[in-house]
């Protein structure tokens, strides 16, 4: 009898503890720390400026009121890009009506992916370029930016399409910190990213 009671009490305690954990833990700030003015601060994405599909210049400061999901791609990419784009669109669909979330795709092949070509690409992907930016800029600056978003991108003659790059979807907060990511080639990881965006938005609601 006593043994039963102990089991029941333990079970109830476990239930109560799990009930308490309703609010998910805050998302970490990912990446190596940076040194700014001699002080160690959390990693943040450095300033950038690129051209959008209307050939207007946009910068990371234009994204300081939203959280955004970004990836690196190129239109003629014969490998992972279409799958990454599909997962990106899944996340886009989940937040289509939420103005606090935007999407940013940087092309790694600016020579061929002109703003006009990217505009066509967006139309064919059937997404709105106000909400999902397709950005064109200096090639070296773009490759340089991949590491800022904790990704890899480099030219490789042997790679299909001449470029090798990772296909992560990166979630960046309003302050430019990277807060979550998913592997764009793995559809099973996408729901977690969709949930993490919700968690991140909550953080701003509570402020």
């Amino acid at each position, binding site marked *: 009898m006593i043994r039963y009671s102990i089991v029941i009490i333990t079970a109830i305690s476990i239930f109560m503890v799990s009930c308490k954990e309703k609010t998910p833990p805050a998302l970490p700030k990912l990446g190596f720390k940076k040194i700014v003015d001699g002080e160690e601060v959390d990693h943040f994405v450095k300033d950038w400026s690129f051209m959008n599909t209307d050939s207007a210049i946009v910068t990371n400061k234009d994204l300081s009121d939203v959280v955004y999901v970004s990836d690196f791609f190129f239109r003629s990419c*014969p490998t992972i890009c*279409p799958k990454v784009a599909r997962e990106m669109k899944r996340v886009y669909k989940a937040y289509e009506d939420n103005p606090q979330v935007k999407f940013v795709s940087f092309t790694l092949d600016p020579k061929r992916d002109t703003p006009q070509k990217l505009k066509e690409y967006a139309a064919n*992907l059937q997404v709105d370029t106000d909400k999902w930016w397709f950005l064109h800029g200096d090639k070296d600056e773009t490759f340089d930016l991949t590491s800022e978003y904790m990704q890899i991108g480099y030219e490789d003659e042997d790679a299909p399409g001449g470029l090798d790059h990772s296909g992560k979807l990166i979630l960046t907060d309003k302050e430019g910190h990277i807060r979550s990511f998913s592997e764009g080639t793995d559809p099973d990881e996408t729901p977690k990213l969709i949930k993490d965006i919700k968690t991140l938005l909550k953080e701003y609601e509570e402020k």
Partner: protein
Amino acid sequence: MRKNNQTYIFLLLAAITILHQGCDQETYAQGKRLYEAHCENCHMEDGNGLAKLIPPLQNSDYLKNNQDKIACILRHGQNGKVIVNGIEYNQEMPGKKYTAVQITNITNYINNAWGNDYGVTSLEQSSISLQNCK
């Protein structure tokens, strides 16, 4: 008696081998492996393609009605506009130096995957098609 036993064991092993092969024999397994390696990144695991960028192979009137072109498209790629199920696509598809055997296997896989029922091609047919590529 001993000989009998040996016969039984032999029969049993033979039966297991045959059954085992039966389990492994997925339809068009070779074509499926090739599809996964070379086609799936764009046409997707369900053959649905992507929006208006990459045309579907599943339930695709283009695939169904252009069986004589498939071999050449696989080997030489495709450029320019195509209309699939009433939607226009214009994204370059790269070709690859597949052998006629590989092309036959891929064709038979996509012709019969995801509920497609577009028939079966032979090595002979694929080879003839390949000789007539434009």
